[in-house]
């Protein structure tokens, strides 16, 4: 049997969840024994090259590019996992959700106290740029998500246990201490 294939991406996230993946330390050696990585910042493969078994999504969805990437993950992965607070609930970027997008853009490019050089009030409107969504969406509001791993970031052990459970098919143990709030 060939090794299960894993892909990862960071949408509107801070890469903290990816750092947490790396935080499994030397077990990463075991991990590459167990699985093969495809599209992922970990190995820098930019596009899907084969069907993937498990896709890990960090970050929520804040622009049209995020939507596209997330949809391509759904298309290419058998199982999708929302990894961390932002993917599950929108997280910090979703703090803008209570504020109209016009106000956010105005603050960022025209009115904000740190805006010094944009005298002409130019707004990012090039077609090459992703289009901003009206709010930051959790991943499961765009595509079907199969599993959710909470945490900011989810602890390395939790990610490890989840991956092992997915790969081996064994049920995952979730004792109260692991999911307790603080």
């Amino acid at each position, binding site marked *: 049997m060939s090794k299960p294939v894993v892909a990862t991406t960071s949408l509107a996230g801070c890469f903290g969840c990816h750092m947490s993946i790396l935080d499994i330390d030397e077990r990463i050696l075991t991990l590459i024994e167990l699985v093969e990585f495809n599209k992922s910042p970990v190995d820098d493969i930019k596009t899907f090259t084969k069907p993937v078994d498990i896709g890990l999504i960090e970050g929520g969805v804040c622009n049209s590019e995020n939507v596209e990437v997330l949809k391509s993950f759904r298309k290419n992965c058998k199982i999708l996992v929302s990894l961390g*607070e932002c993917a599950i609930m929108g997280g910090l970027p979703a703090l803008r959700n209570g504020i109209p997008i016009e106000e956010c853009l105005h603050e960022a490019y025209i009115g904000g106290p740190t805006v010094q050089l944009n005298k002409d009030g130019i*707004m990012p409107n090039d077609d090459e740029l992703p289009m901003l969504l009206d709010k930051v969406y959790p991943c499961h509001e765009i595509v079907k998500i199969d599993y959710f791993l909470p945490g900011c970031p989810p602890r390395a052990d939790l990610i490890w246990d989840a991956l092992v459970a997915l790969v081996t098919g064994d049920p995952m143990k979730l004792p109260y201490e692991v999911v307790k709030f*603080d």
Partner: protein
Amino acid sequence: MENTVKQIVEKYNTNRNRLMDMLIDIQEAEGYISRNAIATLSQLLDMSQADVEQTLSFYHFFSSKPRGKYVVYLNNSPVAYMFGREAIKEAFEKSAGIKFGEVTSDGRIGLFDTSCIGMNDQEPAAIINNMVFTRLTPYRVRELVKMMKEDKPIEELRKESFGDGKNYLPSLRSMVSSNIRRKGMILSDDYHYGTVIREKLPAMSPESVIGEIKHSSIRGRGGAGFPTGLKWEFCRRAKGEKHYVVCNADEGEPGTFKDRVILTEKPELVFEGMALAGYAIGGEEGILYIRYEYRYMKDYLEEVLHKMRKEGLLGTNISGIEGFNFDIRIQFGAGAYVCGEESALLESLEGKRGEPRDKPPFPVEKGYLGCPTIINNVETFATAVRIVQNGGEWFTQFGTDDSTGTKILSISGDCMFPGVYEVNWGFNVEDMLDMVGAYDVQAVQVGGPSGTLIGPDEFHRTLGYSDLSTGGSMIIFGKQRNLLRDVVVNFMEFFIEESCGSCSTCRNMTQVMNTKLKKILAGKGVAKDLKDLQEWGRVLNASRCGLGQTAANPIISSLKNFRPLYEALLQKDKDFDEGFDLEKSVQASCNFVGRVPVFNHH
């Protein structure tokens, strides 16, 4: 203003821990708590303004803007809706000329929603300037608003006769009814308060008091059901400068009102129970923490305490027992359901935001001001008196093996005789429904929103800690009710409103789940949504306190027991639909930056 604040601060000895009282007094004197008042307070108390504002902003009945000369708080529990709240709301809005959440431009009338005010057996009800108006009708509302416009004093607004029981007393003068439908050992009239303190305690050691309580196997009546005897014993053993007795009268669980009735009809029994507990744990100070919704009882309860002091049931060397000193003060909350959680209650007692503490340490070790503290429900203290009077053994003959004694139920909703019933534990739901005259029942909410919603297949179940545990709230829904739309959504919005916001699970998940529920109600749901709801509900278990851990129960328990109601609303032909529309969601930002959206449809 500055002088008022100064006097108020002095009244409480410039003690920061009494910030709640100070804010309540300022709010009542000025109608709101101004920026200047905050500044003066923080200066006099040597606290930062942010700390004062933290407390202020946490509680529903505090406001930093004027709320009007007449402030109307209209209850929004499901039972209020069932008995015509919509029409009442409309009548208020129409005659006052404003919407709820607003104040008239002349500053005369303010209209506000509020969570259950403990009047479920006499809805629709509202609190106007701390006076409770029950069984409102649109006609009555129009009359009330007219009198407000004529600047009539609040006492003149009341046209109804006084309620039953002790509500006629000069210090209460309330139209609230006690509606006692069945009496047991607590509500019975054959105990004269003070008997235990005078006749039993002089011959008993504190340890033997705890022994009787333990022997009775009584468990806490607030809902969690911790063995009372153990709690007292732990507290007695815990080391601390002082030991405190706190009575939790913050009954905020929608549908619960029995503590109001006990405190109206048998306050002496509760205070005697607190003194008894003080004797048992070696504490000299008792605090009754009572919700602000019951502010109308303030003078009455103070009067009872005064009477008991005069009779020697509170004070020093009580009942001739050397060193048995005990007194009680009343602390009002200011509108926060979470303060019914014991550690949040302690925070509030100390003048802070009512955010639950992390546990351990438990309050019996580190409670009020870091000292060992017991916190018990109103009913538990009242029951303790009867236990010590008659012995723990006597008590075990009532109820069942694992749930001894009686339980006072607050029963409301679709039934002929809503009110308060004291029954032995082990009572089953079917018998209860017969007793209260409820027919064609679709569902019963046992234990309030944080409890369970059960249907007819489960009406044979019995009330007790091992089966259907309840703090006392029972709400009955007839066949004509739309459970999901009228009950479950209402309860979820209650939890969203009342979450303290500390844990992200309770702060966010309730919102997320309610959004999903509404999506299903709008006909956009798919089968997976039900599975999601079920699984996400478990995330709430990670919350720090009982409120957070049970905040998804309205959805979880209705999904378990009334699944067909959900299934009937699902789209059969789709397995995923979140209704996300990319073109619509980029519209606003593209318009603003001046670009034409381009979509790369694959």
